[in-house]
């Protein structure tokens, strides 16, 4: 059994009004788009101008996210820093690749090379906080954030930490869209993401980005958003998944009927959504299914935004009317257990489950 773990601080920078937790109060305009981009915060309010100049977007987002999550949890220090990112710092990787080609491998400037490593966000946060503790970075397509949560759960179980900063971060660049949209995985035309619903599919997913940070703690406070019960990450096939799901719930002493809300990683692509929906509806007959990629786009750490959303729902008891994938009615106050489920968009055998409980 895992030790009780509470989510005490949350923060998300996304294409939505998540920065000041206004997501559920401000209307989200469903404008057609080829891809989502974040609403950029005022970086200079948080990072000294001198440092800002050469800093890559992902580092800025990570540094601000860490500050805001720590502030939200009213936490003095953290015992570990864990970041999940599927693609890492794409903009600096592209910058360095371009400079190698353009300059024919001569006279290269190292900044973008140094910042291109996936662990630059976790490393920069450690530098900012002068934190010399446990520090790691996971990069495993769309399971990177969930693996980060599993690491945190184990650190608590090992008595190695009382407070842990966990983040999920991925960015988009125009070049990325150009490179990746050559195949049929991504939409080539601007689409209205809010048109995505059950049986209403799109041709190619809408790409996106977000950066979400959380403070997990072994101590419950009056501001705790939710309790994190468990996380499962598995490389397997749909055929094996029913048993895996049951075992996962059983290990946490929960039956399927106790799950009041499902949050899925649907992105509107039929071949991707349909088997997942079938799996969920086979296992949870009438449980409402919400989703989140129509708010932030498809990207490896989108589930960290889903996690942010779930924590908001469990604590504030608010919900956005556009959140539903299947048409459902729900009494918000009845929600006790939330299960986040997702399959990796680009790798059909990778699944992740997150189980949250109201506090």
């Amino acid at each position, binding site marked *: 059994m895992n030790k009780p773990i509470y989510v005490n601080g949350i923060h998300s920078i996304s294409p939505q009004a998540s920065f000041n937790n206004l997501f559920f109060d401000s209307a989200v305009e469903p404008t057609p788009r080829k891809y989502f981009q974040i609403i950029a915060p005022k970086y200079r309010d948080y990072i000294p101008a001198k440092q800002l100049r050469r800093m890559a977007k992902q580092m800025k987002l990570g540094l601000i996210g860490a500050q805001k999550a720590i502030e939200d949890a009213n936490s003095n220090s953290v015992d570990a820093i864990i970041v999940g990112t599927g693609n890492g710092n794409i903009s600096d990787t592209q910058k360095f690749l371009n400079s190698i080609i353009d300059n024919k491998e001569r006279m290269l400037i190292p900044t973008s*090379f140094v910042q291109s490593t996936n662990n630059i966000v976790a490393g920069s946060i450690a530098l900012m906080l002068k934190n010399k503790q446990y520090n790691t970075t996971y990069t495993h397509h769309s399971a990177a954030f969930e693996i980060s949560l599993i690491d945190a759960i184990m650190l608590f179980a*090992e008595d190695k930490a009382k407070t842990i900063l966990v983040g999920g971060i991925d960015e988009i660049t125009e070049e990325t869209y150009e490179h990746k949209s050559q195949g049929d995985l991504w939409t080539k035309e601007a689409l209205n993401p809010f048109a995505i619903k059950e049986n209403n599919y799109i041709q190619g997913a809408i790409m996106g980005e977000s950066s979400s940070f959380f403070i997990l703690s072994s101590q419950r406070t009056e501001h705790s958003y939710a309790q994190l019960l468990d996380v499962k990450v598995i490389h397997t096939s749909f055929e094996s998944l029913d048993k895996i799901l049951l075992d996962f719930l059983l290990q946490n002493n929960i039956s399927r009927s106790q799950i009041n809300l499902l949050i899925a990683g649907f992105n509107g692509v039929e071949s991707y959504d349909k088997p997942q929906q079938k799996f969920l509806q086979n296992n949870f007959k009438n449980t409402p299914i919400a989703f989140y990629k129509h708010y932030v786009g498809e990207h490896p750490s989108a589930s960290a935004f889903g996690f942010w959303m779930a924590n908001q729902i469990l604590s504030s008891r608010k919900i956005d009317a556009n959140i539903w994938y299947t048409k459902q009615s729900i009494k918000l106050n009845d929600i006790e257990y939330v299960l986040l489920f997702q399959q990796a968009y680009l790798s059909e055998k990778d699944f992740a489950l997150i189980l949250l409980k109201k506090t």
Partner: protein
Amino acid sequence: MRVFVTGMGVISSIGVNVNENLKALQQGRTGIKPISGLDTIHRGKWPAAEIDLTNTQLLNLIPNFNQGTRYTRGQLLTIIAANEAIAEAKLSIEEQKDMAIVGGNTVGGIDITEVNYRDYQTTDPYYFNQAHPGGETTRQLADYLHTSAFTSTINTACSSSANAIILGTRLIKNGRAKRVLVGGSDPLTKFSLNGFASLMIYDEESCKPFDARHQGLNLGEGGAFLVLESEDVLGKKDIYAEVLGYANRNDAFHSSASSPNGEGAYATIKQALKEAALMPEQISFVHAHGTATPNNDTSEGEALKRIFKTNIPPFASSKSYVGHTLGAAGALNAIYAILAMKYSFLFPNLNFKEAMDEQLIPILKVKKKINLSYVLSNAFGFGGNNTSIVFGKVNKGGDNE
């Protein structure tokens, strides 16, 4: 719950399996020579530790390769090393299926994207979409092995696969797995070669770890994997070593340099020894990270002096054999340290002539028939990510020496 190493697999510039690597270490034979494989303006001039096999030749080392033409060099190195480790551990098909995987790498599929970067319109979309990020290297391994278990990838720069060993050990200790395949890989790429060159830390001669004349590193390429098993599923299997202690600490000093007093490395080694419940004087060999950059060697050297005082155990870096293999380095160091322990020998730190510090003289000659009970293996990376692991010698069935 005790955790044991029951299988190891390596491919590097000094050999395509453990035995070839072992022989090269015992003979003091380097794999560093002028670049011949990688298409770079530095070919024929700068040294690197390349594996002298093309991707097609590497493919021939992999039975039942099931991913068609979609692969990267890192994936091939990963599968080759993993296959050897699994065979050594004598896992049954069922055991292999339930085995968790933790891989580490730093460049993922950049070897393919850097070549096709401006030709993305005519390149199979698989490479830009999926193979470029590092997670795909491990995912492909899981597909190849048909596993149905936890699978993950770490990128903490040059300490990635050392952290993979730690995560694997913790998964077992936390009851989340019985067996874990851990390790890492990286191919030589123009991206990393030019990256380290742009930092002015690429030695245009052979690298010289801990030598006063050290100028920087040479890159290498490789794959290194270990099978970790929990004591309750071990049976009477042959054991390479026990994972006794480990630590991950951040230097929090600079994004691409280590603190001059080795603060991060010191804290990491100290914690790893504490976890292993060992005194510094019980360590009989240190596989240093030893990249041969003046910054690393000074910082790591200071940490060794602070931990071991005037009694520094025999130490060496294998970077002067296999270069810096980035994502593979942590697991490679661990495997070499375990081989030294299992076969009771010490390998020399090649290219050492002039001391940078009289207290920091590495192993100069091969020493055989020397009993090593506990070894320490270091791996440090950009982002201040420091990792140390302590392994102990064990007999069949798990008894300590």
